[in-house]
């Protein structure tokens, strides 16, 4: 049985950032990676995807962007290249192609079984990502067999889909981006819209992520929100990273012909039923966006930036059909594919520790898991609003590596 003081599970941005801090503190560790560095980016993302944060902002500890296009949005090959370069830069001790089958309590530490033998360690860092499994609502089981049912994890590009109509369920970042791409491929898209977060790509001449960074929205911590559970479950922003810096919204999608409906609430025979709440979810999103823009305006005013910026403005409210249709006959509408862009969740099937709550979520306080010496990184709002972003995981890794280091020191002094 091999051993390391700390085992990091996963060699994406979160695992690598933790590795950077552990190396800084000379804490011996390995990263067990089921594939290669940046595996999810390599194998679980669609072809056209670009990061939603500008290049300058997609930073890791001690490693920024030095290319020619700081305001551009990284493609997947560029993202993989960036993480590979970081892994080399910090000389991360990655064990690739090592699939973890089980993590369990072993003495006062942990055991890790893998396809390449067993390990033991004092502490574990779970850096396996937040998006391992695509959520698919239970009603999908009742779909007629001739309908092609897929998730974003299976999707590579629109031309791989059957010809014909596509129902995209979910209008967060993934849903709106794929609705656009699929519609433009000549497959008419119906988009089912539940609660969502609308933002413009840029506002008053600056990227929205620049504003969120400057105004401190991304740095907001757990103590600054009144409902952590709600903050952790906010849908992803309706954004797309593209060379044109376009804004994507329900308005822009309707202008290219996408048909907007309410949230999917039922499926009976060949008929999908939609919620009648579409009007309200759009009002909620418009009002919330305007509050964000107002906060930006207030901040810019206080910062004395007014002179350098375009004047404040507001976007056109979400336009909806006067009477949105409440159902859709899949056959008569010619729907061949349903794409479930209904969120993701982590996979903890390998985690043999009593640390999950009744909804299968990890019990943790800001990344300190409810089992001594176990930590998690890279979940939404783990410690800050930016926790799940490449740019956010560094601060969390710094905080948690300090906690981990004192945990190891305490354990040593107890043993002595």
């Amino acid at each position, binding site marked *: 049985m091999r051993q390391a003081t700390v085992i990091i599970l996963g060699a994406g941005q979160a695992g690598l950032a933790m590795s950077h801090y552990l190396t800084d503190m000379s804490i011996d560790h390995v990263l067990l990676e089921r594939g290669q560095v940046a595996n999810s980016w390599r194998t679980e993302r669609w072809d056209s995807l670009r990061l939603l944060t500008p290049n300058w902002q997609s930073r890791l500890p001690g490693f920024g962007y030095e290319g020619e296009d700081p305001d551009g949005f990284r493609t997947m090959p560029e993202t993989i290249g960036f993480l590979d370069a970081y892994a080399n830069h910090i000389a991360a001790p990655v064990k690739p192609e090592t699939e973890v089958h089980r993590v369990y309590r072993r003495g006062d530490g942990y055991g890790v079984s893998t396809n390449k033998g067993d390990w033991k360690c004092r502490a574990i860092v779970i850096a396996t990502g937040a998006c391992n499994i695509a959520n698919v609502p239970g009603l999908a089981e009742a779909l007629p067999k001739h309908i092609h049912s897929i998730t974003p994890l299976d999707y590579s590009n629109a031309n791989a889909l059957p010809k014909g109509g596509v129902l995209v369920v979910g209008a967060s970042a993934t849903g709106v981006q794929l609705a656009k791409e699929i519609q433009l491929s000549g497959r008419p898209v119906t988009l089912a819209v539940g*609660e969502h977060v609308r933002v413009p790509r840029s506002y008053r001449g600056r990227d929205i992520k620049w504003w969120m960074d400057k105004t401190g929205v991304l740095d907001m911590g757990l103590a600054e929100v009144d409902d952590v559970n709600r903050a952790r479950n906010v849908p992803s922003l309706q954004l797309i990273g593209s060379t044109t810096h376009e804004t994507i919204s329900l308005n822009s999608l309707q202008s290219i012909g996408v048909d907007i409906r*309410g949230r999917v*609430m*039922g499926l009976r025979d060949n008929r999908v*039923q939609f*919620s*009648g*709440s579409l009007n*309200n979810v759009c*009002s*909620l999103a418009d*009002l919330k966006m*305007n*509050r964000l823009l107002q906060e930006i305006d207030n901040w810019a005013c206080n910062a004395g930036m007014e002179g350098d910026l375009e004047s404040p403005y507001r976007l056109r409210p979400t336009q909806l059909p006067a*009477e949105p249709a409440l159902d859709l006959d899949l056959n008569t509408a010619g729907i061949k594919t349903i794409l479930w862009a209904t969120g993701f969740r982590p996979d903890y099937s390998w985690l043999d520790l009593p640390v999950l709550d*009744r909804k299968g979520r990890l019990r943790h306080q800001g990344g300190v898991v409810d089992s001594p010496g176990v930590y998690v990184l890279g979940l939404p709002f783990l410690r800050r609003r930016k926790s799940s972003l490449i740019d956010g995981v560094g601060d969390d890794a710094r905080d948690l590596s300090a906690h981990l280091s004192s945990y190891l020191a305490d354990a040593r002094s107890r043993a002595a």
Partner: protein
Amino acid sequence: MTAPQTETTQLNGVNVGALLDAREALEAAPQAADFTFRATSEWIDGVHTRTEMNGFFGLGEEQSRTKTFTSEMDHPEVFAAPDAAPTPVEMVLSGLAGCLTAGVATVAENRGIKLRSVKATLEGEMNLHGILGIDSDVRNGFSAVRVKFDIDADASEDDIAALVAQSQKRSAVFDIMTNPTNVFVTVNK
């Protein structure tokens, strides 16, 4: 969950503190959050029915009230009925108004907004070809429901719009009306 009590700190007479405490308690004890509401009804005559509402199940046990509430429903003269009470579909609108208005007051209380008046005007559009069985393409129920609020409060237009939006987001009757529900009707033997 707790009897409403008007405290001097309340702006709109909603005991938000008790509601927030209940939320916390029910998050910790999920089974206690399972409620069953009930009504019983009895046919009077013609298309006139009386309904009674008292007990319900919640917080893990039967709950009863000191008073039994009643409502009556009949149909108007154009339906060849004596118009002794509102129609059931008006009661549905009434339920929506009650639920959304309660939500507006609660959200306003929670956000520190003092309400001076909250009025709602509701319309449910219905084509009788459905219930009369003239056209099977026309549904029996409302084809659309429109609710217009007039709210006087110390708050901006957007803040008032946000109260109404949040109220819909958390409303039971709004959900019942906008989303499908399995309804099981049986006859006791």
